[in-house]
């Protein structure tokens, strides 16, 4: 039985531009079990985003294989396994908050059904709006919202299909510090099912979602993840694979604990080593 696991075997990616070759990703092996929250961190240009795009099948690897839930990235995409949150909110400016959150449900309608959509537990748009705290803004257009609110819409959109695999590419990087912190905990609460508002009735049996979260913030990586992958400078390879065993649910106060600081120190050391400094 296929689960939300992500498996990479010897995956490499080379970019060619005007005859020049750039090794973006060294041959990479990776095994992410279902339900794990994995943060990927590394210096700029180390191939973090490339890794995410390879998993989503938005890029083709030059070597190796990627499998998501036992199938190819293309198959997983067709079956709507992915919830993607890019760096910008990437909302349609002519659609309201409600319309943007509902957008993905209107696309590729045949895809998930044809492949058996038992893995999908679509969330009611209204429920999601409440979960991400956008009540009262259902009919607002994106340009009427702040950056943080726009990113809330993007987050809700990624959760709307109930996709078992979340791919996030520095989703909070452009936000101010306070909003960023808010968004991190919002993400965690939606991810582990605690974010379900009482009005939505009894929680459905929660299916853990696999998360691949690209970031350049050490604190963010340690705060959110079960496991932090540290990539080296180009071509990216895994220099450290660090389990983060901080108890969940995570709270802001944990950031001051000795264990937290210990983890961030480890990640920082691995980053330095990977950057060759």
């Amino acid at each position, binding site marked *: 039985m296929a689960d939300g696991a992500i498996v990479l075997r010897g995956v490499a990616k080379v970019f060619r531009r005007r005859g020049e070759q750039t090794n973006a990703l060294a041959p990479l092996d990776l095994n992410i079990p279902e339900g794990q929250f994995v943060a990927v961190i590394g210096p700029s240009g180390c191939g973090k985003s490339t890794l995410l*795009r390879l998993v*989503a099948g*938005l890029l083709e690897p030059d070597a190796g294989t990627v499998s998501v839930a036992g199938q190819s990235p*293309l198959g997983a*995409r*067709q079956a*709507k396994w*992915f*919830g*993607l949150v*890019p*760096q*910008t909110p*990437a*909302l*349609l*400016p*002519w*659609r309201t908050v409600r319309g943007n959150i509902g*957008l*993905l449900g*209107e*696309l*590729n309608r045949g*895809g998930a059904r044809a492949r058996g959509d038992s893995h999908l537990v679509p969330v009611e748009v209204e429920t999601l709006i409440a979960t991400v705290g956008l009540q009262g803004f259902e009919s607002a*257009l994106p*340009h009427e919202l702040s950056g943080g609110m726009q990113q809330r819409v993007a987050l809700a*959109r990624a959760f709307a*299909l109930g996709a078992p695999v979340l*791919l996030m590419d520095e989703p909070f990087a452009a936000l101010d510090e306070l909003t960023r912190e808010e968004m991190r905990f919002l993400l965690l609460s939606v991810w582990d099912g605690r974010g379900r508002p009482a009005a939505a009735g009894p929680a459905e049996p929660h299916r853990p979602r696999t998360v691949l979260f690209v970031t350049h913030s050490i604190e963010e990586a340690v705060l959110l993840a079960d496991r932090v992958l540290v990539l080296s400078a180009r071509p990216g390879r895994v220099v450290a694979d660090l389990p983060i065993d901080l108890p969940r649910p995570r709270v802001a106060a944990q950031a001051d604990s000795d264990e937290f600081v210990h983890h961030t120190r480890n990640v920082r050391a691995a980053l330095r080593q990977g950057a060759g400094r």
Partner: protein
Amino acid sequence: MTARTLRTILPPLLAFAVLLGAWELVVRAFGITKLVLPAPTAIASAITSDWGGWLSAARVTGEEALLGFLIALVVALVLAVAATSTPAAERAVLPVVTVVQLIPVVALAPALVIGLGFGPAPRILVAALITFAPLTVNAVVGLQSVEPDTLEVLRSVHASRWEILVRLRLPMALPYLVAAARVCVGLALIGAMVAEWQGSSEGLGYTFTRAQRSLATERMWAAVFVLALMGVVALAGIGLLERRLLRWRPTRVRT
């Protein structure tokens, strides 16, 4: 009429009044003959003395211009969608557009009359050719103006090319197409009218050349004024359309 609309339309109305008044004054003060420059009042009476004639001439020219514009719009959209789908198609389409843009389409009109006869076909074709390039260029730029992130979100659920075109690219292209339409209104009308100079028996261009033969300069000027007025009406129509279709834009283009 509210005070606000009055404030908006009063300044341009005043400017036009001043301009026409000065024109009238100069013509009268210096005794300029109508062969050199007819007075605005003479032009106005040339129009008001024959409402029916002007209206039917305007209709002919307007229909040619509109039909030419619509044909160009359809061709532009088809080519722009093709250009957006593969880099090779883009490299094929854009040079053709550039060359068409450089052809003096209006000068081509006599040749088109020989080929297409004395019906409205050559005039419609001139209006289409003259608006084709700005429409295509804007359609290509508009369809490609989608953010890569938004495109990837749609692709991550395996949205089809058609879905991406209809739900993302075309709405993104709409503001660009509206901007192109503004430019094309004048072009299409001018193209149709000038094409009527050759071998036509109706329309504003025909009225123009016939007036020229009898040295009725006030009627020639009147034809030009009627054409300009049609452009103003068309632009107002586009402005209305824009306000309806592009309500979602953060900064609405002022009309």
